[in-house]
């Protein structure tokens, strides 16, 4: 097999995060010579899913300041009861536990590129709101957010007057781009969504919180324009792939699985893969770049594509916590309606002010907890991994027979990259990096398409982007899923 240095690569892709992996998928039938490397020993970059041991090593690297990328302040802890943890590899903890709405362009691309055949998708179930108790002696509770007409009708958590308001709003959002709805919200477009809800829909604070939660935004002052777009996506995604759910989660670690499947498609198309290999030095040449890899190999390429890993320190970072608890939390994962698939993920929102922080002050930002059942394949049966600062409050609120215990915790801060859009310096392209929001944001797909277009040059046909036939042998008669 010829050494790496003997090839003039059309592109070297550095990193196997979602964007780089999707680029590998997009180029997998192009015949381009592709070298795809990653400094990590695992696939997925900031979207990776880690075993317990990998998580501990990862935290070690961030703490020692080597190769932490955009991650900071990582810590890991095991309970004293850690004998109840299964072997390290029984876990697959997602660093970015992003759910994908049914109307997301990501799903369309996975279907048209045939990559979806190797991914098992599970339903995301109900969205809940955490409610602190009126009386401190009582348990906090979780209230299910009604987000379909049927649910609004049947819920007992909302008063009849509020039901009418909710119904009116849901109907409004479903066709919000058309007239006369458009005229109603346009004047408020850049103002917080809550202003619209209060002024035009006469909603009280509680109803406003319900609606705000459907945006899954970390910004409780999300604008009307952005907020309506996200809620519209949520409502129009409902029922697309089956009754009673709007979003999907890939089994075995979410976006990590999509990165792995995309890289495999790249490999099947002839790309060469090297994990645990980064770039030491980059030098521009007349016809591209010369790279010295950490493996000691020196390679030449026409193009280099990587992700922005220089943090923007002014940018709000996201703080995350992954915890494994010793309870299946079965009450959260019940099918919403008859005939619906059993959900594997539930989302619980903690509105601003609903959690008291250690200092005695109330939480200043919304907190979201994404509870994953063992059906996600991320932890053994009987355990659940959850994400939150409000974890303890949640564990008290969840209606189980006993308060679940935390067995393992991983926490970290994640910064955004400094650049806003695709960076391009001669043959070097840099993807902008944003920490994955709770629900997949299609805007991360655009830079991938841009790079693909640049790579393909005149051969780029937009309509053929990510549209592939099944690979020979993959078409199957009776057990396609």
């Amino acid at each position, binding site marked *: *097999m010829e050494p790496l240095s003997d090839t003039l690569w059309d592109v070297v892709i550095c990193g196997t995060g979602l964007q780089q992996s999707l680029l590998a998928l997009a180029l997998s039938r192009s015949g381009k010579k592709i070298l795809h490397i990653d400094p990590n020993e695992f*696939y997925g970059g900031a979207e990776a899913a880690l075993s317990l041991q990998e998580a501990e090593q990862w935290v070690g690297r961030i703490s020692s300041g080597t190769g932490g990328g955009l991650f900071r302040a990582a810590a890991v802890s095991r309970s004293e009861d850690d004998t109840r943890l299964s072997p390290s*590899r029984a876990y*697959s903890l997602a660093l970015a536990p992003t759910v994908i709405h049914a109307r997301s362009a990501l*799903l369309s691309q*996975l*279907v048209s590129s045939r990559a*979806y055949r*190797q991914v098992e*998708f*599970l*339903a995301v179930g109900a969205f809940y709101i955490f409610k602190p108790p009126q009386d401190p002696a009582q348990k906090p509770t979780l209230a299910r957010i009604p*987000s*379909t*007409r049927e649910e*609004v009708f049947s819920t007992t958590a909302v008063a009849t007057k509020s039901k009418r308001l909710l119904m009116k709003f*849901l*109907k409004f959002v*479903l*066709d919000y781009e058309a007239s006369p709805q458009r005229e109603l919200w346009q004047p408020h477009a850049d103002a917080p969504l809550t202003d619209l809800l209060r002024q035009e829909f006469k909603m009280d604070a509680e109803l406003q919180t319900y609606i705000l939660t459907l945006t899954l935004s970390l910004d409780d002052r999300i604008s009307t324009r952005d907020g309506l777009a996200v809620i519209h996506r949520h*409502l*129009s995604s*409902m*029922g*697309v*792939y*089956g*009754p009673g*759910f709007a979003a*999907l989660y890939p089994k*075995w670690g979410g976006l990590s*699985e999509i990165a*792995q499947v995309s890289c*495999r*498609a790249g*490999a*099947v*198309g*002839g790309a*060469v*893969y*090297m*994990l645990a290999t980064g770039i030491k030095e980059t030098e521009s040449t007349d016809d591209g770049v010369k790279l010295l890899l950490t493996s000691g190999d020196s390679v030449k390429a026409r193009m280099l594509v990587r992700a922005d890993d220089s943090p923007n320190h002014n940018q709000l970072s996201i703080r995350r916590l992954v915890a494994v608890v010793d309870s299946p939390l079965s009450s959260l994962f019940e099918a919403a309606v008859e005939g619906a*698939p*059993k959900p*594997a993920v539930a989302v619980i929102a903690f509105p601003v002010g609903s959690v008291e922080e250690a200092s005695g002050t109330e939480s200043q930002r919304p907190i979201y907890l994404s509870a994953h059942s*063992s*059906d996600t394949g991320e932890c*053994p*049966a009987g355990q659940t991994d959850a994400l939150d600062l409000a974890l303890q409050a949640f564990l008290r609120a969840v209606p189980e027979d006993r308060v679940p215990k935390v067995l393992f915790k991983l926490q970290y801060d994640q910064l955004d990259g400094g650049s806003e859009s695709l960076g391009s310096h001669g043959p070097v392209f840099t993807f902008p990096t944003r920490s994955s929001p709770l629900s997949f944001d299609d805007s991360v797909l655009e830079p991938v398409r841009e790079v693909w277009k640049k790579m393909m040059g005149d051969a780029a046909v937009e309509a053929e982007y990510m549209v592939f036939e*099944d*690979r*020979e*042998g*993959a078409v*199957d008669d*009776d*057990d*396609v*899923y």
Partner: protein
Amino acid sequence: MADSNAPKPSSSVKLVLLGEAAVGKSSLVLRFVNNDFQENKEPTIGAAFLTQKCNLPTRTIKFEIWDTAGQERFASLAPMYYRNAQAALVVYDLTKPTSLIKAKHWVAELQRQASPGIVIALVGNKLDLTNTGPGGGGDADGAGAEDSGDARKVTTEEAKTYAEEEGLLFYETSAKTGYNVTEVFTAIANAIPETSLKTARGPGASHAGGRAEEQRVNLNGPRDSNAKEACAC
């Protein structure tokens, strides 16, 4: 493989290929699937996976055979490759002792990463390059052997002993002549426990039990047909 037209229970089995580059992994599969052999074949196979049925007296096993697609070259296989695999073919080149060392590494990796009940077959390929008959036990010291046109460097005894210690199926094959190739796959098919065939996708999914099937969301279904009725409009 016995031919039969009677309807028999049919199950899909994911089989992963492992082994050092150029030991003949893809060639073994091409021989099994197409009864074909290509001298100087390009390293990658160009398919997500290949399928081939194996008819047993009481059931039909449909192998989904996953090639490493070259990701083994720099030890860069993803967990999704091993996931739900019910069988593995670990291949070495019996003219190349280092390839057996590599094979042992892959066996260890499978024991670490794959489902506990996985059926592993250790296969010494390129038997056509030796002049010892099958099971004959060639000379481990290659110096004398090369003169006689025998390139064998790994004795049958050595590999067989290792396979027995680890509880692996063991065969020596030639993808070039087809010798023992079908036998390997038939032996694997026979070794897969009936119980793990009950669920459609194998032991990796079995902790979710029979629910796994009804839980999976099918993206191939009618994407838009019932969206309108179920939504909140």
